[in-house]
């Protein structure tokens, strides 16, 4: 008996069975791999944070180095509080809600640094990045930028090291107290606040400039307290050992209650 593969019944049944099989297959694959994928994404995010701190994420054991060197904090009511819940991999909506994460850690060169997540928009889709600032919160120690779907070879080059390394050592705030760090057209960077953009990707470069500006502006309260606003640093240390990263932000008198370790 030969099947009539042109009949209506056959066609409908074929389509239905095919769709059901494919749907189950895809659902199975997606749910079976979900955990591994999420672990990968979290690990990659940690790698990006380490990359902003000057580590080469391709050559280190990201999970281990992150565990050793970096701590996740929330900036609330003027101080940093350790964040112990599930590690986040996207920060755009959190920043909008006012949940400002600040990572504290040491750079590959051994310097104390704060890492701030930033998000923005490029030409085709979202951009994000991590900016490491020094302890005095006035200079960039390193950056990491990446993108959802910028053009390969053009806008996508913001993800390359040469572009990100240009930010190292740049001051953040201009004389008026606003974020002055920016990205210019390729080859046009002149002042100490300017960084060369990517040739042929002006819109993506502008997106990075806006992301850096808005991203750092969102952390202005945190960054604004420069070194001069750290009057009780010595006191905290003496009174019983605050966590190193909280030393600068603990208010007078509250040190022992809120931030003392053990």
């Amino acid at each position, binding site marked *: 008996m030969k099947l009539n593969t042109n009949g209506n019944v056959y066609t409908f049944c074929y389509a239905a069975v095919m769709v059901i099989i494919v749907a189950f297959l895809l659902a199975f694959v997606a749910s079976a791999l979900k955990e591994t994928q999420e672990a990968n994404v979290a690990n990659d995010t940690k790698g990006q944070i380490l990359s902003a701190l000057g580590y080469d994420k391709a050559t280190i054991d990201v999970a281990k180095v992150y565990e050793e060197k970096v701590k996740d904090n929330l900036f609330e009511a003027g101080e940093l509080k350790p964040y112990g819940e599930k590690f986040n991999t996207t920060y755009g909506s959190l920043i909008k809600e006012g949940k400002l994460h600040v990572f504290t850690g040491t750079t590959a060169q051994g310097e104390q640094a704060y890492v701030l997540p930033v998000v923005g928009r490029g030409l085709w889709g979202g951009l994000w990045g991590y900016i490491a600032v020094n302890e005095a919160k006035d200079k960039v120690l390193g950056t990491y930028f990446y993108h959802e779907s910028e053009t390969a*070879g*053009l806008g996508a080059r913001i993800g390359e090291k040469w572009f990100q390394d240009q930010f190292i050592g740049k001051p953040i705030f201009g004389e008026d107290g606003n974020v002055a760090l920016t990205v210019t057209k390729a080859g046009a960077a002149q002042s100490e606040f300017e960084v060369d953009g990517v040739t042929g990707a002006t819109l993506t470069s502008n997106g990075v400039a806006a992301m850096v500006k808005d991203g750092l502006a969102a952390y202005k309260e945190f960054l604004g307290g420069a070194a001069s606003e750290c009057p009780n640093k010595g006191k905290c240390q003496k009174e019983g050992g605050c966590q190193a990263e909280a030393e600068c932000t603990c208010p007078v008198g509250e040190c022992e209650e809120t931030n003392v370790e053990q």
Partner: protein
Amino acid sequence: MSKLFSDENKAAFTGPLNVNNPVAVQVLGICSALAVTSQLKPAIVMGLSVTVITAFSNVIISLLRKTIPNRIRIIVQLVVVAALVTIVSQLLKAYVYDVSVQLSVYVGLIITNCILMGRLEAFAMQNGPWPSFLDGIGNGLGYAAILVIVGFVRELFGFGTLFGYNVIPQFMYDAGYQNNGMMVMPAMSLIIVGLVIWAHRAYNKES
């Protein structure tokens, strides 16, 4: 063994590499040739991904070919390709995360690549799994070859680099040499593809 590599099968594999090249002769798949060739590395990654996906979707369609209802065959082909690409991209995300980040945009482009549908419709629907597999590999590599040529020219003259490494010595720049910004623009890839087709046809005049 001799049957596996008969002349016909060999032709299915080597044809698309030269005289029947999908890009240069059939002018298929040039949309992605434009998108991913400004540097050499993404061009190679894209070429290899298309090769793998074309080969395996060819095999699957070829196995199903006698059962597929004629009126919905394009839909069936599309479902197979889309399912395959989705599964591959999920596997990449789970096990080789770095590569999946590299491929992010291109995975979607693979589904819409005209070469895939073209080979399924023109070859896999009429031939057995093994010749279809060879045909898929051949077409994928033929496509990859053009991408690599275009990527090579564009990266060399547009950025002065290959695989991201500087190859044009500094004294050339000191002497006044400049990278050609035109090469970086998408339009230039079509011009280069045009030149490749010209050279290819001049060489293969008799066909």
